[in-house]
């Protein structure tokens, strides 16, 4: 056991005194530390809005982005800057940094002056009190606050990455929901034509009330579907709007009419597990926690006989007793309290180690699962695009030929038009699932994946 002598302690604190004096504010509330973390994982910067100039810059950016239909990347960019919950978290970083800086600073020495008059005697007592405890605990506090800051940094970065992923998903949902409205309208259009023709059939005396009612019922239901789809689209859009932190006229932003096309090929990622373990912030956080507890363990071992809490409680120095000297007394516990503390720290450490292992295992599993889901979603979407939709088209062509040959009626033609649109809608659903799966994959792998070559440029690069 290493028991520090008061002398050595004093020497050490003197050195630390010089060192901790360096801790100072970064000037950007610590965002400089997380911006690269977030950018690497979302493709967009994270910044705190502090000044009017920042706000004006953001307004300009919003104006530029919202002048065009909002892309998924654009939505992420806006959310990272304009989502106020996220901004609040960014300030969390400022708070942590302030704590860190504060911890690194020694308490100011206090100068006391006591003038006492009693029994005709006048005693003047001057004391210079210096918080020795803080001197001793400064490196510890600084280290703890340093860890705290690191942890906050991880948390804020993770939150930003989460908001980015949520925004990307909300964007996909909102665009898909808009497409679903278009689909519902087209189906209703076909139903409307059927109902109108049915009405004319009835007027001409060619159809019964039964036949007409059947067509009208279908149209009425189709209109209800349009209303439902519209409501769903509104909800999806508002979810996105909330994430973007937009309101007022800015909330009238436009979205693209369609989801991006399916890439020519799915991503082929050989090292999903390694990538997850390397990039994921939760793994990194667990790793940091392990390191933190490890150093805490080391510290506990080193200071097992120093009751830091007790020392911290000894606030008042009795300057009256000895005016010319200072004496530091350390309580040395005779019972095995420090040993218990070490055991606890060891347990905490082992807990952290296992949590890290569990987090890494989960991350690997999630990476594999997300990657499989992503590939399946790609295959399903491609199946719809390359097989189902062409077959539906073929069916429609053949239906029209049969109509031409007076083998089928207009009503069957319209029913087929509805079915064809239903297939297109299913494709949009599969495409939506694909883009959501991609977003989930990115989340599972800890960040934005490199862009896949779009289908139009495929030929040029191969």
């Amino acid at each position: 056991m290493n028991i520090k002598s008061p002398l050595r302690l004093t020497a050490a604190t003197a050195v630390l005194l010089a060192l901790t004096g360096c801790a100072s504010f970064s000037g950007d509330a610590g965002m400089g530390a997380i911006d690269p973390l977030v950018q690497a994982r979302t493709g967009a910067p994270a910044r705190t809005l502090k000044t009017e100039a920042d706000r004006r810059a953001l307004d300009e950016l919003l104006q530029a982005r919202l002048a065009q239909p909002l892309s998924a990347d654009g939505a992420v960019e806006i959310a990272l800057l304009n989502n106020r919950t996220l901004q609040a978290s960014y300030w969390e970083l400022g708070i942590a940094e302030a704590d860190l800086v504060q911890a690194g600073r020694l308490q100011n020495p206090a100068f006391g002056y006591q003038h006492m008059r009693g029994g005709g005697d006048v005693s003047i007592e001057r004391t210079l009190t210096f918080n020795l405890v803080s001197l001793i605990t400064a490196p510890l506090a600084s280290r703890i606050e340093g860890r705290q800051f690191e942890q906050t940094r991880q948390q804020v970065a993770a939150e930003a990455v989460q908001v980015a992923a949520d925004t990307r998903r909300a964007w996909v949902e909102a665009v898909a929901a808009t497409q679903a409205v278009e689909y519902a309208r087209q189906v209703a259009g076909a139903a409307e034509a059927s109902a109108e023709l049915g009405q004319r059939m009835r007027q001409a005396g060619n159809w019964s009330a039964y036949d007409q009612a059947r067509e009208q019922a279908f149209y009425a239901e189709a209109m209800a579907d349009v209303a439902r789809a519209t409501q769903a689209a509104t909800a999806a859009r508002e979810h996105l709007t909330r994430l973007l932190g937009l309101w007022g006229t800015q909330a009238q932003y436009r979205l693209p009419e369609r989801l991006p096309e399916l890439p020519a090929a799915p991503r082929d990622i050989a090292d999903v597990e390694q990538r997850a373990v390397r990039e994921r912030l939760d793994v990194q956080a667990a790793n940091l926690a392990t390191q933190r507890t490890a150093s805490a363990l080391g510290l506990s071992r080193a200071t097992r006989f120093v009751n830091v809490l007790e020392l911290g409680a000894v606030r008042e120095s009795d300057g009256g007793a000895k005016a010319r000297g200072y004496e530091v007394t350390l309580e040395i516990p005779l019972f095995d309290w420090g040993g218990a503390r070490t055991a606890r720290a060891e347990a905490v450490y082992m807990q952290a180690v296992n949590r890290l292992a569990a987090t890494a295992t989960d991350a690997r599993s999630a990476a594999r699962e997300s990657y499989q889901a992503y590939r399946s979603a790609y295959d399903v979407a491609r199946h719809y695009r390359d097989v189902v939709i062409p077959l539906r088209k073929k069916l429609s062509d053949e239906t029209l030929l049969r109509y031409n040959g007076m083998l089928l009626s207009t009503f069957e033609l319209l029913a087929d038009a509805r079915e064809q649109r239903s297939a297109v809608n299913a494709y949009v659903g599969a495409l939506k699932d694909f883009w959501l799966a991609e977003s989930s994959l990115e989340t599972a792998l800890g960040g934005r994946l490199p862009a896949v070559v779009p289908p139009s440029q495929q030929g040029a690069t191969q």
Partner: protein
Amino acid sequence: MTDSMKRRSFLQGAALLGAGMVSKAGAATLPEAPVQGSAATAAPLVPPNGRPYNPVVTLNGWSLPWRMKDGVKEFHLVAEPVVRELAPGMHANLWGYNGQSPGPTIEVVEGDRVRIFVTNKLPEHTSVHWHGQILPNGMDGVSGVTQPSIQPGKTFVYEFVAKHAGTFMYHPHADEMAQMAMGMMGFWVTHPKDPRQHAVDRDFVFLLSAYDIEPGSYTPKVNTMLDFNLWTFNSRVFPAIDPMVVRQGERVRIRAGNLTMTNHPLHVHGHTFEVTGTDGGWVRPSARWPEVTTDVAVGQMRAIEFVADNPGDWAFHCHKSHHTMNAMGHDVPTLIGVDHRGVAEKINKLVPGYMVMGEKGGAMGGMRMPLPENTLPMMTGTGQFGEIEMGGMFTLLKVREGLARGDYRDPGHYRHPKGTVAYEWTGEAPPAPSAPGGKAGRADGALDVRRGGASTGHEGH
């Protein structure tokens, strides 16, 4: 080829594909089995030997040559899958005999001893029933009852005396529902011993058959019972059924047998006729009465006779109007009188290429729109005055002056003497009266049912 085969002449490029059906070893004892590849009408088969007779003309078909062996007429039928052209643009996977469906017409003379070799090249067993013949029970061709069925690859021999002159047919009596739905049938004529008896100048024969071939497919649906979509004379549909060409003043006989599952009232224009024969024999002259339509019930045969004294192009058809149509949708609702304005544009947005049809009637007004593969327009054919709008069991009786005897070539459109064609009234006319209530509930003008329409907006389709 036999000499008789070489002497045969054909109309419209008909050609025999040659023999060689059986093995060389078998050829010593089996008669040749000629094969016909063309769906054109073959010229009458003048008997090269045996008793003389006046041969018949099989519409879009042919007669089977025979060989005489020890005074017996030997024929060889080969039952086999065939591809029949129902009309240009449509082929059917059928089963038939000697390359065609229906099989070749067999012509014999009253009292002939006939030996028919039947080789089965179908994937399943078969038999041949000689419909209407009076023969020994064991030759009647009912598998299971009078004989074991003919297994694939086997050859059976039928032998009997054609006792009675008349109009007959042959068809399987083994899995006959499927086999007749697939086109297994053929005509049989037993001519009278005396060629002068019942003699006519032209003697046309054909079988009525019906198929249900889904547009875009090739093989009939053998389980269809009544809702057929192709009604045929000898497995042909108008406009691909050859016309019956006759010289003015000739005595004409038309014989038809019905192997569909419904009756067909056959109707001839411009002439009256008498039913002179059934599959039971000749009708006594005292029992005949004048007709312009005779109903041929299921499984029946009718022979009608008349003198073609009226020149022109005369329609000859089944009088069930759906039977003079080709493939059509039987569940398509009636659109007559339905105003499509506004709706058509909406539909066109949803279904590019959509054209309004039927709102002024069933006629397509000369529209020629793309159809599914291997099917035919519902109504088709063009005459000298426009669309004929017919299909199925429809052809023309073409009566012309001065044709050569035995000349069956299509003489083209009839040239009407001046002033004998219906014409448009161009004088002043008061507005035509309408039935009261005729326009009730309809948009104005929507009731103007015009056939063969002026095709407004249909050009180019």
